[in-house]
């Protein structure tokens, strides 16, 4: 059933611009999100990430350009059908404090036209089934975040838009969060994760979209971004009882370091003597890439 959507675009943005009064929040952004793809949306606070997500939800209309989500304009009245298959987790999710977890989920399930019977399993999946009948006001921040995630997962959405989903989660929860995301992606859902904690997106996302002051400044897989950013990898190692070979410079930690191109890495490693220790290949982290793109966009 689901694979008919594979490699099909679930979210399409064409030259989308949004102005808050006179302030340009999103500037001529083109973006395609495909089924079965997990995309990281990164940028500073105020780079336009939340505005972009709100336009995908139809909460705000673009000043110009077009937005299509699951084949419909999300701000049109007819988008109700598309919204049934959409999951959204807002930044710092706010829930009604006087309802219990189970009631909260039941309320949202009814709005989506989903049977309430599956809710306990969903609460169990995010790990708060034990607190289902406690009021949300007694929940910790991590528990609220998990309840927020549970409501976003209602009705097996085809597109999930998660705004800063892992803030306030401890590392163990983060791990289980990404496991849930991986399951959904395997089932063919499109998942958009906005974040400014880039390091943790590494290894979780297929593609990264970098925003800066409302503009899309980069869009591609992590390897592609590395190539675009033109930050070279560095090899570090410790040579015991040997003089420093040509081309190697001392690194701050006492080892030797050599900057090279990606295709030279193998050759250089082979040339190392057998006594070489603590060999390490340093590639730019997402944070460094991000800084590079921000600099390029200034």
């Amino acid at each position, binding site marked *: 059933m689901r694979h008919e959507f594979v490699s099909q675009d679930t979210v399409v943005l064409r030259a989308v611009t949004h102005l808050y009064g006179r302030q340009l929040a999103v500037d001529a952004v083109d973006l395609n999100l495909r089924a079965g793809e997990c995309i990281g949306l990164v940028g500073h606070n105020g780079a336009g990430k939340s505005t972009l997500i709100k336009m995908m939800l139809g909460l705000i209309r673009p000043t110009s350009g077009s937005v299509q989500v699951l084949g419909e304009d999300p701000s049109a009245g007819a988008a*109700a059908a598309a919204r049934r298959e959409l999951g959204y987790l*807002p930044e710092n999710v*706010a829930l*009604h404090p*006087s309802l219990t977890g189970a009631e909260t989920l039941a309320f949202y399930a009814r709005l989506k036209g989903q049977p309430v019977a599956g809710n306990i399993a969903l609460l169990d999946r995010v790990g708060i089934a034990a607190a289902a009948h406690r009021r949300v006001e007694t929940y910790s921040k991590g528990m609220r975040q998990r309840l927020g995630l549970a409501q976003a997962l209602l009705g097996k959405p085809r597109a999930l838009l998660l705004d800063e989903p892992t803030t306030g989660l401890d590392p163990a929860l983060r791990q289980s969060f990404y496991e849930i995301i991986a399951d959904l992606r395997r089932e063919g859902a499109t998942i958009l994760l906005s974040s400014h904690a880039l390091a943790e997106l590494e290894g979780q996302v297929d593609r990264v979209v970098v925003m800066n002051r409302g503009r899309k400044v980069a869009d591609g897989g992590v390897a592609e971004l590395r190539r675009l950013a033109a930050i070279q990898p560095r090899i570090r190692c410790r040579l015991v009882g040997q003089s420093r070979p040509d081309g190697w410079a001392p690194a701050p930690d006492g080892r030797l370091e050599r900057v090279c191109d990606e295709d030279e890495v193998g050759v250089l490693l082979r040339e190392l003597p057998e006594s070489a220790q603590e060999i390490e290949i340093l590639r730019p982290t997402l944070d460094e890439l991000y800084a590079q793109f921000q600099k390029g966009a200034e």
Partner: protein
Amino acid sequence: MKQVFIIMGKEWRDGMRNRWVLATTALLAALALTLAFLGSAPTGAVKTGALAVTIVSLSSLTIFLIPLIALLLSYDAICGEIDRGTMALLLSYPVARWQVLLGKFFGHLAILAFATLIGYGFAGLAVQWAGADDPGAWSAFAFMIGTSALLGGVFVAIGYFISTLVRDRGTAGGVALGVWLFFVLLYDMALLGGLVADQGRNVTPAVLNALLLLNPADVYRLLNLTTSNDVSGFAGVAGLGADSGLGLWALMGALVVWMVAPLAASVVLFARRQV
């Protein structure tokens, strides 16, 4: 329509949980009982039943209290939810903005109707049990409960209008308090002052009628103090409109307009509002 009911149910449950329903009902019952027994003490020798007297005192109480409770319930219904961020999540669901507004409205109206029915009904029954047998006044009493709920609906709608119009909760609260003062106190004071100063030169009965219809609290007063003979004998000063010639249906229509117009305006404003 299903979505409207879902949201209405949630508002009702919220009201039960944060004790709004309980507090309002208890407050109305306590005040109504106090008025019923203290207010009817001096009427021992008069022939009119105690229930009719209670209606007069209760409607005066209602004019102050119900608009205040309604505005407190409603002033942050929209801007508060936008502030807290619950609105953005709600609107990402397959629900239209007018459905959210109507659902909340019916939920809040249900809370007010329940509180007046139980609170005042209790007092009415207590008066009856206390021996003041007055079956004739029961229809007027039921009518008062119904119109009190309707007056509540008017001010809930006005509260939503404020809530969709202004940016933040603080401002909405201030404006709501101002609106309450205006309709409940200042308007009538200004009107009476104007009538005295005018000495009947410019303010003809027709103008006066129009002026009374411009304030929902006055419409409510006219409805309860003048449409029943039994009651109007006790209405005193409020009998001002007794000869107004405004029929029951004109007054009821005015209240309904006062409820529907702000509600429609809030639907329009909310549809344009940035969430």
